[in-house]
């Protein structure tokens, strides 16, 4: 049983000690603690099953415009003191950063829905193994093989500073995913929620098994530009890439498709927001500088409205901070972390019905920027790609490579699904979540094919 790892009082004590021992004009302490528990299966059996308890204290000390950061996993009294001393000493030695605007002042953190659910935190290895076993059994019963995982993670984040900042939030995250594979075709499904009780592995396995049955013996289909219906799994990728470009830093560095275009039409009639307070997502009312997160409309019915900022980018560019600082990293300092692409009126079946000749894509794989400014991305389709003919799924097709501008693709939005699905907490994500519907798009550029 893994209830909150350390608790608000303990995180406040660690952060407070760090600030008390830091020597400088300003200081900030960020404490994160988490328990990662993940049961992984493949070939219809559990093969990796892990739990780890982790904590990190980060101290940032500023002496004028000299700034240094120390991170440590040692949150003992000695560890805190050592880190505070190291950060203070290093801040004396580093060259000045002329662009440093000082640590942000404290602002009230608004209330938000809780993202912490006891039964997720309390899940045991046996609980996860039983859920994994249900998925494996559903696959085995149809003669398929499945791989995936069930995880229950618990985390806490606290930020304090010499400027009076205090922000604390606990969070749980339950995830399950599976690929189901036959001899000649595969399918995918996943579920994410803060509440393990909301992760319906039965419906997930059923979805993947049924689609896997339909995906067997895919046919060749020539690459080209096709009308598409993208399942939520694929749309999540689009939201993630475009979200990364909807930041003040991306505009400043000349790599955002909305740079110089606020107020102009940049996509079709889609609306994309960042809303840290949406209870259907993974709400957290503050960013990684302890600043209150604002709900921001990024694209409204296709018109670029705003981008998001952290304190430094906002100060540097003369804009207001929107409370979207990411965990410290030099490449991307701010980004929308709670993206929602607003739903439309259509069911998935209605979206498919609207296609005369096109392709249904379940998900994308290994997507990468080709040209960030134009939002050109390349990647593969994977785990369930089908031809659509006369509004019906006609037959499975072999996977495509695509090379496509994502915002141009949204320019041809013909239909939007009514059901939102939550994504987030994935491998190698800096943080954040996405709530997205399925989409029907007029044109998508498939530039190559593969052999399966």
């Amino acid at each position, binding site marked *: 049983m893994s209830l909150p790892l350390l608790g608000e009082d303990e995180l406040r004590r660690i952060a407070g000690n760090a600030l008390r021992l830091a020597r400088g004009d300003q200081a900030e302490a960020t404490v994160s603690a988490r328990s*990662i528990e993940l049961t992984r299966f493949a070939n*219809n059996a559990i*093969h*990796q099953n892990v739990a780890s308890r982790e904590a990190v204290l980060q101290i940032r000390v500023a002496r004028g415009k000299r700034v240094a950061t120390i991170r440590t996993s040692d949150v003992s009294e000695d560890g805190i003191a050592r880190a505070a001393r190291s950060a203070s000493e290093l801040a004396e030695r580093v060259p000045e950063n002329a662009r440093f605007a000082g640590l942000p002042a404290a602002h009230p953190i608004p209330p938000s829905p809780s993202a912490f659910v006891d039964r997720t935190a309390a899940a045991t*290895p046996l609980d996860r193994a039983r859920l994994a076993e249900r998925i494996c059994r559903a696959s085995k019963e149809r003669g398929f093989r499945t791989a995936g995982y069930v995880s229950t993670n618990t985390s806490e984040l606290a930020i304090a500073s010499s400027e009076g900042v205090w922000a604390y939030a606990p969070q749980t995250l339950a995830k399950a995913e599976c690929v189901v594979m036959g001899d000649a075709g595969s399918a995918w499904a996943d579920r994410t929620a803060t509440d393990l009780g909301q992760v319906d592995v039965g419906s997930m396995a059923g979805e993947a098994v049924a689609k896997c049955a339909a995906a067997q013996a895919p046919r060749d289909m020539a690459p080209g530009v096709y009308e598409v219906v993208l399942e939520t799994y694929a749309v999540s990728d689009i939201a993630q890439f475009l979200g990364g470009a909807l930041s003040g830093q991306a505009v400043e560095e*000349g790599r955002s498709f909305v740079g110089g275009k606020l107020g102009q039409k940049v996509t079709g009639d889609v609306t994309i927001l960042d809303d840290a307070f949406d209870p259907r997502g993974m709400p957290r009312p503050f960013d990684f500088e302890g600043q209150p997160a604002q709900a921001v409309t990024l694209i409204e019915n296709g018109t670029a409205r705003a981008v998001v900022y952290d304190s430094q980018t906002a100060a540097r560019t003369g804009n207001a901070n929107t409370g979207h600082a990411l965990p410290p990293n030099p490449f991307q300092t701010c980004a929308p972390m709670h993206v929602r692409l607003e739903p439309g009126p259509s069911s998935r079946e209605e979206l498919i019905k609207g296609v005369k000749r096109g392709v249904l894509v379940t998900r994308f794989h290994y997507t990468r920027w080709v040209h960030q400014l134009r939002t050109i991305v390349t990647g593969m389709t994977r785990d369930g790609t089908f031809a659509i003919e006369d509004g019906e799924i006609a037959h499975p097709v072999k996977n495509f490579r695509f090379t496509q501008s994502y915002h141009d693709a949204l320019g041809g939005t013909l239909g939007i699904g009514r059901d939102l699905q939550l994504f987030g907490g994935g491998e*190698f994500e800096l943080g954040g979540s996405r709530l997205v519907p399925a989409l029907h798009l007029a044109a998508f550029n498939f*530039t190559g094919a593969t052999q399966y």
Partner: protein
Amino acid sequence: MTFAAERDLASRAIDTARTRGAGYADARFVRRNVEDVFIKNGDLDTVDRSDTYGIGVRVIVDGAWGFAASHITSPAEIDRVAALAVQIAKASALTKSQDARLAETPPAKGTYSTPVQIDPWSLSFEDRVGELMAAESAMRSVKGLRTTRANYQIWREEKLFLSSEGADIEQTFTETGVGISAEAVGDGELQIRSHPAAGGRSQNAAGWEWVRRWDLAANAPKIAEQAVALLTAKKCPQDVRTTLVVGSAQLMLQVHESCGHPIELDRALGTEAAFAGTSFLTTDRLGSFRYGSELVNMRIDSTSPGGLGTFGWDDEGVAATEGFAVKDGIFVGYLMSRETAAALGTLSNGTMRADGWARLPLIRMTNVSLAPGTFGTLDELIADTDDGLFVETNRSWSIDDKRLNFQFGTQIGWEIKNGKLGDMVRNPTYTGLTPEFWGSCDAICDEREWVMWGTPNCGKGQPGQVMHTGHGAAPARFRNVRVGVGM
């Protein structure tokens, strides 16, 4: 060395696990210290020092696996972690179809330390930063840039590994990475050039000599000028087939993606199917499948000097090895763990590696390298090419989940006309299928052009792990390659 107190605690963890029913147990203490420095547009943007320390315990109970880890290393916590690993393994048994079985390996005892010429931690902070700032400043002497960046990372990791079979290994790894880049923006274009390679920084199992090897300040103006020139350069030829000469820094990533990953035996056996994917190099193809032309030899070598996958023993206590993945164009070898090797009826070649103490060891690339050829230098290779394209330094990379269909973009390219480099081209891309691409290789430069590069950002596993892998490559030539896709 450095783990006097931890040896008793590791033994305690193994004893606790055995007492609770583990047939096999190992314990790993890891201490990692890293310093990252980033300079952007002339300012010291970030100085970040981090240390992380903890223990991971891996067990087999009744033929099923469990793993638990903690950043707390008190005796009571060690007992909890070991007991939790056993509890997890018992839960794993719920779906067990067969018992986990490990290939034999002699229980090793010993130490290893990365050889370095200039210990990066022994230099003063001011000296390290000063060299980087000089290089970054040299880029900004060129007009027309939007963003300049420079960064280094120095890395030290110490590990203690004990197993219930009697292994007792201490290792210390040192790495140094560096990179500079210049970005220019204009007229709907964003162009980047970096040195010595792409990906933020190029890293080696080496000391500060790795930074000085690349003469950053001297190369800075050149890449800055190229970034600006790319804004108005000729477009890459669109969707045509041509002869492609691929530079060493780009080809090393091609090796990583199209050879290194598909030779991971866990992928071939399906245990990475949900996330990373599987492999077109299935076990029935071992020893007979034509992967590339007869010129193509791919080495698996965890003993290569400078390689980020060079060590004394892997994280299962298997000694470093060298061998072939592809010999004379034929696929002949996998990267293996003790468990997957047993499934093939052979011994592990020692490629299990974990990202720190909190993660389970997985099959990872060590150093997977294209062996140097016999053609000569890059200049000689270009002189031998009538018509084609020379591309260098990665900008974009993508490959399917069986590692067949790939598409790469590079930062820069030049036309080759009558044996000479011609016009610079912007946004070059090329695409193909792995065996066809390597099958079209008709020339590989020799060891004078061969560099052991490093990829310090290879992602795999759930929970996610980032691994540092080594890849040697020399420039090579490929015929009839499709270039200029989708731009």
